[in-house]
């Protein structure tokens, strides 16, 4: 019996010690970061958001104090909302941050109940933003903006209700009054493009860089750049919506922005922001971006980012009934 009691005591002490390790006294600001930081990607591995994160993370961690590690965590599902909600509800201690797709998750939140509120998050930076463009398949015979406006019974291809291409397509269709239909349900933008090449549909509205490699292969033709206020340097011969008189189209951008949960202390988000923007301008990332045809940046201050996002909210709110 005595032996048992002593054993019991020792076990209890060990358990208490162990518990203490799991919930250590909160570290001082100067000790941050002292363990790995998690970057949540709300989509599956190998996708657009994922690869940029995986390229930037190893460089970004070199710019963190004590070169703390950054671990990529894929939490996909519910169109990205699962991952976004995870980050939103995580402990605001600076050890979790994640991507969001603007306008994707934002537009969904305009007309449906969601567990996140982007007006409350702490923005860290803009990883990648670029305008959305309308591409037509070469098979469709549509070569210019005027061709598109003249063609009856147009079909857009999109990756499933609520996906980026779907939101962009309905947005463009409403503003340009194309009276187009949307062939939806494809598993991702690559499958949509394959569908276009096959002849399932004529048009797709995606980010410039997602479609660009198919231009050089001759399968797609850029017809109109939606977002932005002037022509894009990557597609100098393609008209931009605003010059054709459709200024509402200017909101047609994609922002891959990263944020931390509401309440994360400013000193910590600053450390992350600075590391991110330094990484984005690091020559290794610039080279990678060029080699792989992936848009990185532009680097934006939190103020600039917030303003840009607010503009997009305004732009899409006008048409929010489209996205119910």
């Amino acid at each position, binding site marked *: 019996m005595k032996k048992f009691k002593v054993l019991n005591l020792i076990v209890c002490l060990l358990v208490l010690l162990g518990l203490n390790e799991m919930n250590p006294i909160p570290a001082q600001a100067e000790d941050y970061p002292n363990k790995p930081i998690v970057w949540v990607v709300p989509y599956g*591995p190998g996708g657009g958001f994922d690869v940029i994160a995986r*390229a930037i993370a190893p460089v970004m961690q070199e710019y963190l104090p004590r070169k703390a590690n950054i671990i990529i965590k894929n939490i996909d599902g519910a169109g990205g909302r699962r991952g976004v909600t995870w980050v939103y509800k995580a402990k605001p201690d600076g050890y979790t941050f994640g991507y969001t797709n603007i306008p994707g998750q934002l537009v969904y939140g305009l007309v449906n109940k969601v567990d996140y509120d982007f007006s409350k998050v702490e923005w860290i930076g803009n990883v990648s933003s670029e305008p959305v463009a309308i591409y037509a398949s070469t098979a469709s015979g549509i070569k210019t903006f005027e061709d598109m406006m003249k063609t009856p019974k147009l079909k857009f291809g999109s990756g499933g209700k609520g996906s980026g291409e779907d939101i962009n397509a309905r947005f463009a269709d409403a503003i340009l009054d194309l009276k187009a239909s949307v062939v939806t349900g494809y598993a991702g933008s690559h*499958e949509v493009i394959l569908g276009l090449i096959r002849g399932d549909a004529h048009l797709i509205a995606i980010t410039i860089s997602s479609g660009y490699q198919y231009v050089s292969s001759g399968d797609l033709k850029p017809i109109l750049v939606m977002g932005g206020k002037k022509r894009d340097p990557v597609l100098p011969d393609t008209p931009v919506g605003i010059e054709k008189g459709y200024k509402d189209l200017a909101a047609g951008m994609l922002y891959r922005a990263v944020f931390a949960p509401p309440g994360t202390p400013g000193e910590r988000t600053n450390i992350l922001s600075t590391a991110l923007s330094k990484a984005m301008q690091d020559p290794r990332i610039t080279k990678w971006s060029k080699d792989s045809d992936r848009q990185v940046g532009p680097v934006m201050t939190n103020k600039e980012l917030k303003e840009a996002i607010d503009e997009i909210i305004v732009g899409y709110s006008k048409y929010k009934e489209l996205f119910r």
Partner: protein
Amino acid sequence: MLDAILSALTVLLSAKGLLFVSLGCIWGLILGALPGVGGPTGLILFLPITFGMDPNVAMLLYVGVMGGSPFGGSISAILLNVPGTPINAATCFDGYPMARRGEAGKALGISATASCLGAFFSLIILVGILPIARTIILAFTPPEFFMVILFGLATVVMTSRGNMIKGFISGGIGIILSLVGFCNVTGGVRYSLGTEYLWDGIELVPIFIGVFAVSEALRLAVSKRETISEESVVITKLGGAWEGFKEVFRYKWTFIRGSAIGTIIGIIPGVGGVVANFLSYTTAIQLSKHPETFGQGNPEGVVASESANNAKDGGALVPTVVFGIPGSLEMAILLGAFILHGLVPGPAMLKDHLDLVWILILGLAFSNLVASSLGFLLVRFLVRITTVSVSYIIPTIVVLSFTGVFAMRLELWDILVAAIFGLVGYGMRRHGFPLVPLVIGYVLGAIAEKSFHQSLMVAYGSYSIFFTRPIPVILLVLTVLSLFLPFFLSKHQSKGDK
């Protein structure tokens, strides 16, 4: 072309190249054998590690994993009746009964041989059709997909010939399960019970692990068996694997058919690759003179299943390399790896990076060879698992299964789903409900619906699109034939008897 091949060979046959492809292969073997963890999960783990490595060598690591995984999965399928990955499910049906008869070594030998040769077959086809690959892939539009999948669903009927009604029920449940969640096409959410967890539907891996692995553990626990093998296991020099090697050649037409089916399913992006091994298995039953021997330990069943599931990888490389569109989940990760290393996948790949394409082809072939050779070497050791007391086996299966399920997306509910389906699977087995239709229905149900809707959207709502294109019509005729031919044949036979 020739210098691309030579350049690829130089990379592969370097010390670093051989090391990495072998490392990847071993990793794939181990992970493939652990239920639920194989395939995509193993590949993802490498993504951060390879950043900064020479892209050629990194690619060898990836195809190494891809080459080892299918055979790894067959090991647990044969020895434990637990498919290591979903593509090994059909291997259980005859592989495990063989293990119970003390012929595990033979079954493993069949698997090793069929896997390796099946992969070679598909890679040869891949190289052969590259010039016309574009045309082939572009020929498959939504109506074609729908008809292919309809044919796949018809195999549900084929597999449950003894048990028609139960087979239909099983298949029906599978289809309903596949429809749970968000519908990509209509935007509606079905049966989600208001939860975000079910919003995306029920994942394949928890269902699969539950129905096959957990239910098997339950069955073993309830049975009176001491060890998996019921007869004494003869440990010959190679453990019987050489016998297995010869069986593949004995059933060479089954092997060729299986490899062909696997390759074709792999080439068509969007049709679940999981179906390949089932389709090959059920086709073998259909065409056999003794269909009733399947499921009792007929080696031909293992040949059919294992040749198809490796062949699918070679096939999946086709759309990946020609269009930059992933032919399977592993390929999607591979494409991500390309981008990570600054390579742009897409139509330009064949023109600008032919040597990389050859590295993939040769690497995959080599990895399959390594996996199968290791299999032969380890057969004696592996076979002993069938002589271990089940009181060690059962908890191992349960722990590995639940860990594998959790590892997939760190979601606790997935474990609950696996547990529930463990009970469902056990109940189904006890009452004679075939499991295959459940899995086929689940894999194909939602895709069938999606293709159907897409076909109508493409055709502005007209149904004629199904009947005015040649391939869908041919497939439809094939489906009807395969459904009714057995009835006609048996009627004819019974008339003949009279």
